[in-house]
């Protein structure tokens, strides 16, 4: 189907956008890249009388370093994140993730902020952002607040953002020296069935690993048991510990049967990609 008629508003600054939302209430929604929203509107799953287009708001396209953080404005597209030298140099794993989102048309118009606000459970970004310790800033009628990424995604299509709030920035702390990241996802349909983000940090004689699992549950899952099992294990010795830790973790994952695969297969995939992502983050062969 096509879009039902709506009125388009194009504010040029944040407070005008908030004022429009206050004026039209639940009959209105914010809109940036539109790759998720327009599909839902066309399918008539959602319907709004007013769309508040954020694309003309000055400064919303910011992509910059701010102290020890990377700041990603709400209009920054996946394509920019995949190609911008700042991201490619400081967070190559995130640039690669972005380069693999959807297809070129989605990457060119879809924004990371919109992707997070929509909270499609099979999206790639949340697991890696959780791993990176990212936070999001939201602005509402009562001002600004910051929410850690791990607390932002509440479930499928549900986030900590109130409907009248605008996600104004994603902040990612720049990795400390010696920390390496990897994100791997797999699926045979448009969206991945499972995604795994892994980090490796070599601290004088005490290697540390961190792992988050995305797509398989309602929100990203912190694989603390894997991290505990791997703590202190040098990369060369991972093969003694990692398969068992990955499988034990995968067995506990909340997978269900759906078109992405049967639950047992998806748990198996999680184990495979926990292994591959951890190995790759540690620079070991076998990560493929």
């Amino acid at each position, binding site marked *: 189907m*096509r879009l*039902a008629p709506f009125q388009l508003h194009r504010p040029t600054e944040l407070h005008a956008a908030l004022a429009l939302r206050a004026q039209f209430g639940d009959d209105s929604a914010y809109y940036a890249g539109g790759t998720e929203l327009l*599909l839902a509107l066309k399918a008539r799953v959602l319907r709004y009388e007013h769309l508040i287009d954020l694309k003309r708001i000055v400064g919303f396209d910011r992509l910059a370093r701010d102290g020890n953080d990377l700041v990603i404005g709400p209009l920054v597209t996946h394509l920019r994140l995949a190609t911008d030298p700042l991201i490619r140099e400081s967070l190559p794993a995130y640039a690669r993730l972005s380069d693999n989102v959807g297809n070129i048309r989605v990457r060119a118009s879809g924004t990371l902020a919109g992707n997070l606000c929509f909270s499609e459970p099979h999206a790639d970004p949340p697991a890696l952002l959780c791993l990176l310790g990212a936070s999001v800033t939201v602005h509402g009628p009562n001002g600004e607040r910051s929410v850690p990424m791990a607390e932002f995604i509440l479930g499928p299509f549900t986030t900590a953002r109130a409907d009248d709030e605008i996600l104004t920035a994603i902040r990612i702390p720049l990795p400390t020296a010696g920390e390496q990241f990897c994100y791997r996802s797999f699926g*045979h*349909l*448009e969206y991945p069935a499972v995604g795994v983000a892994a980090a490796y940090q070599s601290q004088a004689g005490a290697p540390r690993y961190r792992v988050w699992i995305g797509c398989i549950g309602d929100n990203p899952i912190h694989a603390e048991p894997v991290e505990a099992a791997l703590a202190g294990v040098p990369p060369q010795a991972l093969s003694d510990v990692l398969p068992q830790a990955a499988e034990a973790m995968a067995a506990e994952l909340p997978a269900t049967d759906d*078109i992405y695969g049967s639950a047992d*297969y998806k748990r*198996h995939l999680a184990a*495979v990609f926990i292994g591959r992502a951890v190995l790759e983050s540690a620079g070991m062969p076998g990560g493929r």
Partner: protein
Amino acid sequence: MSAAERPDRVDFLDKVTGRAAFISDLDVPGMVHGKVLRSTMPHARITGIDIDAALSMPGVIGIVTGSDLGGIDPIWGVSLKDRPLIAIDRVRYVGEPVAVVVAETEALAEEALDAVMVDYDPLPYVTEAAEALAPNAPLIHDGVQPLKDFYFKGEAKPVAGTNIFQTYAYETGDVDAAFASADRVFEDSFDFPMVYHYAMEPHCGIASFGDDGLTVWSCGQAPTAVQKVLSRIFDLPIARVRVITPLIGGGFGGKASVKIDPLVATVAWKIGRPVRICFSASESMLTARRLSATVNLKTAVSADGMLQAKSVEVLMNGGAYADTGPAVAIKAAIRAIGPYKIPNLRLRSTAVYTNTVPGAAFRSIGGPQGVWATESQMDIIADALGIDPVELRYRNMLKRGEHVRPDLTPIDVDMAEAMGLASQAMSRLDAQEPHRRIVHGTALGIADPANSPVAGVLLRLKIDGSIAVISSSIEVGQGIREVLCRVAAEQLGQPVAAVSALTPDTAIAPFDWGTGASRSSLMMALAIEDAAADIKAQIGDIAASTLGLDPARIELVAGGFTADDKRYSFADLLHPYFGIDSGELIGIGRISPRSRGGALAKAPLFWETAAGRCGITLDEDTGEIAVKRYVSVADIGRAINRTGAEGQDEGAAIMGLGHALFEELIYADGQPVNGTMIDYHVPTIDDVPAQFETVLIENGGGPGPGGMRGMGEGAILPIAPAIANALATGFGIRVKQLPLTPERVWRALQDKKDR
């Protein structure tokens, strides 16, 4: 434009610049727009449709439902008369049209759809063929009438009181005796899913009633079949139904026979204004799909691998309406034979109604289903007997001139040559990357196209030497207009730039059976040959009577002809003949089963064949197959447009790759669960093997000018079994169900570990 600047195809410039007009680009004066409300129930009685609220919405002109069909014949079909123009009191699948809202714009029609309220009383439903056969299965039709020789030659054989709409049986030799005495008997069952055609252009049409009858702008691949069905529905003389077919954005059988024109025309008839209806891709997915199949094979083999008997048992899921399913069911059984000498043969096929999207023709009807089974089993046999699978095929291969089946024309190509070339080409590809571990698989496919030798063409040679080709062959992306131009140019000795192929229009184009079954290039080339001979005869007669020349000494050259070393333009001939410096000659070419001394009546007219060899890798942890290399070989006799023919072959192979790895329309609780292009994956350029070679053999020997055959449907046949055979060879797993999804392959690997 000079000849050197001319692109490979006459339609390329318009298409790449976006100038090409498709049906959805057309605007007929007074035209209004229809949108279809579709059934949400797999099987139900309609107890009420409330249209009042929708009728009062802005721009709404009218709403057509099953209660508006008084005065016309509301039931139609092409094999069986089983299909209402729009649901009447009952729906038989999710997606069936229940009402059409007509409004001044498409957007206003769509807005009003939600306001149409339909009350349903659910009926028990079946979505699987086996369920539909059960003794207590709900009956989907109360009784249907076969239409003999209506579209395809022949007649469906439904079984009264059941959901069976087609039964087919063929037997030669003593099959049971051969099974009883054989060294080895192999029994295997294979499944092929429902798959969707995915033409880039969804179904669309415009219909307009006027003083001169009914005119439709149709996306149908068989304009004359559309014309005939519409004439029956509205009780109009055939000559007063005009079907115009602009450029069409892909069909693959999904627009073959007759699809949406009866609905579009009915709405125009009821509303009294020209009506345009254009489906979305999701709606087209609810309009037609390939028949899914279970194919049971039982094959008797001697210890040294010689095939002695084969029994093919096909069960097809034909969906809610038969469409051309009865023909598909027959072809699936025949196309499961393969290019092998099998002295004792039993074929059985059954097609049933279910509460799913109607099954329909799809590139090589029944072919991929049958070949998937047979070519998988050939490797199973080879493995069990310890014979190399290619060697097993050589041992049993029919030679050119030998019979696939005693009552069918003998095979007219050398399949051993095709298989050999596939191996050679793969060796070349392997040599380019020798270090990589690749597993190979081979499969062959042969199909007997239903060529229906009824066709016609008009050639109009204008006084300035330009030529118009008028035919009913539709340009559906396959490049027929270029073929028409090249053949006409060749037959009349004129430059191809002088020739135009006109938009098909049944008001002026001679009757033709339709565009499909790999027939148009061949049938039209034959017709053009005759039409050109007609023009040459007329030139000879006029040259003799007007210029006093000896017709036997006339030779056509660019822009005219020569006789006795003197050059004449066409104006030099026609100006004195007509008395004015204007005019044309019209050549008529007609093809019938009696043409060429009856040679075109034999069935099949040629064999469409393919050999495929793949090179794959497998991620054993995930079950994901990567097809790294693929070779497709076909003997097409002679290529008219080589790059176009290669494109057709490549397209068929990659379409088959989609069937092999990704595609399956899935039903749960009577509902299609992946009926959008987001959830249903068709191959993209990223899925095309990095090394991919098409080898077209031009050995002549076909029935067309220069020994050409039809082509374009062969390469879809072998790719799925070739990949499955590579999986078995390299990884010891035999998967008998398509698509070969990562999970299915992984599960087979697990089962093997557990054994």
